């Protein structure tokens, strides 16, 4: 992470903001889903976007996986694309919690709904801490079922320089639901985020 230009203090600051955002998100989700949500400390890493496909190739190789993308943009040049990856098996678990009956809505709608809820609750928590607010584009399925995850990621991430990889593991009381979230952030937005982190650090 350091070699891509985050100082140790900036990294600590970002990790804390993300931890708090995840905490706020799981709190909201728990109340919404009426279940207990346990959240592990998300591990974050700033990586070159070109390395993203290989990172996820193994994890999603044998399973039916879904990728959903959602763009976000806020003040002070904060913008990027959030990609949520999860296994279909997990999607069915959480859709039952969301109150969907089988056959109620199309699979695609279910996937975009879950992904949008996870992404926007997390990013709203992040934005509120940096005194920002975000707008979102509609979620879009990049691939589901038989698509090759690595290929889709290759085609998606090539025009981004950096990616903030956030590994999230949600555990609901009776079920475990794991997913990965990747925040793809263009170079100048990374610089803008660094300025914001510096401002927060100066305040303390």
């Amino acid at each position, binding site marked *: 992470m350091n070699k891509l230009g985050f100082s140790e*203090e900036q990294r*600590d*600051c970002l*990790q*804390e*903001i993300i*931890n*708090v*955002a*995840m*905490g*706020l998100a*799981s*709190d909201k989700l*728990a*109340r919404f889903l009426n279940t*207990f*949500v346990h*959240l*592990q*400390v998300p591990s974050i890493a700033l990586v070159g976007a070109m390395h993203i496909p290989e990172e996820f190739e193994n994890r999603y190789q044998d399973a039916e996986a879904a990728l959903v993308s959602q763009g976000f943009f806020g003040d002070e040049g904060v913008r990027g694309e959030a990609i949520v990856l999860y296994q279909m098996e997990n999607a069915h678990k959480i859709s039952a919690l969301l109150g969907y009956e089988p056959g109620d809505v199309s699979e695609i709608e279910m996937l975009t709904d879950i992904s949008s809820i996870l992404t926007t609750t997390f990013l709203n*928590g992040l934005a509120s*801490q940096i005194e920002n607010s975000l707008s979102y584009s509609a979620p879009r399925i990049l691939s589901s079922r038989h698509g090759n995850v690595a290929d889709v990621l290759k085609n998606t991430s090539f025009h981004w320089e950096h990616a903030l990889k956030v590994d999230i593991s949600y555990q609901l009381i009776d079920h475990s639901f794991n997913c990965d979230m990747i925040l793809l952030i263009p170079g100048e937005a990374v610089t803008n985020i660094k300025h914001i982190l510096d401002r*927060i*650090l100066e305040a*303390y």
Partner: protein
Amino acid sequence: MALPVLICDDSILARKQVRKSLPDTFDAEFQTAGNGMEALAVLRSQEIGLVFLDLTMPELDGIGVLEAIKTEAIDCFVIVISADIQPEMQKRVMELGALAFVQKPVSEDKINGVLKQYGFI
């Protein structure tokens, strides 16, 4: 006499945020710990009056610290500071003997409210 206070959080930023949210009128001597193990080492070796305790930490999390305080009967007050304030979690923390629960991100208002409520200021 100044109250010995331990601020335990794995994030430097979070520790600073707590420190900065405390009012000037609060007469205390501060120590910090970066995870649960460090916190227990301090608690076992010194008299600490009040602990600000984060829940999600590496090595040993806040729940682990609360459990140790309870089983080892360490005499101190604990204010838990966490972003995750699900009712289930609050209940669990209170059962383990915590005094109060403050939601992250902390602010002067939130911290002062709790300190006043329990007579620290």
